[in-house]
């Protein structure tokens, strides 16, 4: 399987990433950020379009730039990069909407064969955390690089 992805840029501590989606809607700047959560050792993945007015990420917007798989591959690449530099970090992933959560599930499912040897992946399903399997409708995810 090939991973067509966008050029990914990172800050020098590999916690903030940027890439530019290109498609029928033009060039759209995307940001990914890994933020330390209240529980030490867990980082929240935030991903969305750069909002030039607020300087924040808008992760509710649906840009439909006809490049979904390429965008997903780029987000997965950021997870791989972040966890390379922070191998002890658990990454928490939850969409801001049900469709965004489905998008994350799709990303993990598409690249599951490639990720599984490297990552421990949990999904939240029916009031419990369980080991991730494809075709399950999880509401959140926890991911960590295997030692």
């Amino acid at each position, binding site marked *: *399987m*090939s*991973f*067509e*992805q*966008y*050029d*990914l*840029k*990172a*800050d*020098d*501590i*590999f*916690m*903030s*990433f*940027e890439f530019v989606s290109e498609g029928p809607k033009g060039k759209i700047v995307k*940001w990914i*950020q890994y*933020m330390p*959560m*209240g*529980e*030490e*050792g*867990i980082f*929240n993945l*935030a991903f*969305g379009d750069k909002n030039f007015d607020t*300087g*924040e*990420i*808008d*992760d509710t917007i649906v840009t439909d730039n006809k490049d979904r798989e*390429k965008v997903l591959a780029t987000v*997965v*690449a*950021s997870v*791989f*990069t972040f966890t*390379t*530099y922070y*191998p*002890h970090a*658990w990454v*928490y992933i*939850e969409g*801001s909407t049900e469709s965004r959560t489905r998008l994350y599930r799709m990303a993990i499912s598409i690249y599951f064969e*490639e*990720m599984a040897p*490297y990552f*421990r992946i*949990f999904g*939240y399903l029916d*009031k419990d*955390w369980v080991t991730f399997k494809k075709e399950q409708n999880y509401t*959140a995810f*926890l991911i*960590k690089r295997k030692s």
Partner: protein
Amino acid sequence: MENTSNNMDSLVINVQIDKRLNALSNKVLFPKKLERANAFIAKHGLPQEVKEDLAQYKSNVETLQKALLRCYVSEPTPEQLAQLNNFLIQLFPVELEKTRA
């Protein structure tokens, strides 16, 4: 510009440092999402395996801090230096590799 990679390792190599993004490092770009994430974990908890892993990590960091302190206040023995080296390798594998290179 686009990249096409055939395995996950090559994805890491393709990431470029952009110092312009350093300004984002100390800024929470989506505070509401962070609040929701913290609320979710507070409400639903963590898998037992994650709890144990985090506890082990905290324990390793504490041991590292003690080992560093020992080396700082007194002449460390070869065994203490070896122990310190092992903890550093576990905690900062990539940074050590870059430093050695």
